[in-house]
């Protein structure tokens, strides 16, 4: 379940933050920093990129609090901005890994970026990080954040069938990566036990 669903931001914080109250703005940041950063790290992998994007997300959120209608969850609104920022980054041409063709051929082949701090992540994290960006982002948005195929289709300007097929590819790749568990990894987390 998405960690955003656990975040409750009091309307009083929002009211004060709209007037420029720094302590309210900071409270909003503190409540949402972890879910926003986690989501960005899962989507873009690189810590430095995630940190930069997280700053941009909070700048956009805090500068545009007036645009939040109050009809849905505030955390959900922030999440939609974070997802949009991450996908904009992934779509940049030189990043270039969002091509469906890439997902066809390179599911098992991509290494976790240099300098990442996930050397001791779980087997599942390693398998997830090895997926191409497109496939990884879709499995995360669907299985963890709870986006529907129709919502994912809108985000990627594709069809729901495309989202379904990418999700199936992601699960096939994860299965292939996780099934031959040999137990020779140094940093196996309790989640695998």
């Amino acid at each position, binding site marked *: *379940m*998405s*960690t955003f669903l656990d975040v409750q931001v009091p309307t009083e914080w929002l009211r004060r933050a709209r007037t*420029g*109250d*720094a302590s309210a*703005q*900071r409270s909003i*940041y*503190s409540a949402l*920093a*972890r*879910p*926003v*950063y*986690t989501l960005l*790290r899962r989507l873009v992998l690189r810590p430095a990129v*995630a*940190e930069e994007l*997280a*700053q941009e997300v*909070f*700048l956009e959120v*805090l*500068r545009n609090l007036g645009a939040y209608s109050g009809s849905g969850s505030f955390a959900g609104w922030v999440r939609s901005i974070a997802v949009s920022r991450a996908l904009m980054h992934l*779509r*940049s*041409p*030189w990043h*270039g890994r*969002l*091509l*469906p*063709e890439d997902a066809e051929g390179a599911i098992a082949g991509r290494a976790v970026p240099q300098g990442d701090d996930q050397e001791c992540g*779980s087997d*599942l*994290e390693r398998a*997830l990080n090895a997926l191409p960006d497109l496939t990884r982002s879709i*499995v*995360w948005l669907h*299985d*963890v954040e709870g986006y529907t195929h129709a919502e994912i289709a809108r985000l990627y*300007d594709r069809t729901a069938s495309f989202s*379904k*097929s990418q*999700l*199936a590819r992601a*699960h*096939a790749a*994860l*299965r292939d990566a*996780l099934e031959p568990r040999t137990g020779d990894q140094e940093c196996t*987390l309790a*989640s*695998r036990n």
Partner: protein
Amino acid sequence: MHARLEELISLRDRQPVDAATVSHVASCAPCAAEIRRLAALRAELTQLQTLSPPELWPLIEARLGGASGSVPRRRWMQLSAAGSIAALVLALAASLPQLRVADPVPSAGASTQVPLQTLVARSQRLETTLRQLPQRPAVEVAANAVAIDALQSRIQRLDMELASDAAVESDPDRLQELWTQRVSLLNSLFGVRYAEAVHAGYRATLEQGTL
């Protein structure tokens, strides 16, 4: 014939699938086991540890431009921000000739062709420089806003083509053309944004009464 993975995921998510698949899975132990495995994997994904960011608030607060705090502090921040804008614009002005001369993109019809990698690198540098420009002013000049929107729209369309059109990848000439256009558009965008920033910095300086 077992159900396809896509169908099993739909069943896991309680989404509709055709009756034949439902009937098959009801009596097929491997397919039922696969659905359980998929559900367990989803549960594992949701239980992956959340990640703590480094302390980003000071950076965010600074980039918010002192929109908070007491009135004297806000005034101080405004002065500081105006000074920063002026300094940044000057720094960018210093780097502008280098940006434009270092590896120029030939105009249409020019005989020499810039290597694709150079175009991509130049595109990246221009985007980095654009990100370093001050935030766009709250009060925009209409002509600037229209020009910036138009340029950004054209860049987005190019990006869509570059990112999603498989035919482009296998056509070096088209790829070259698109990246050349992209650099050219980014150059234009930088020009407009730069002029806007200079104007905003000049106006801020005037408002401070220090000019």
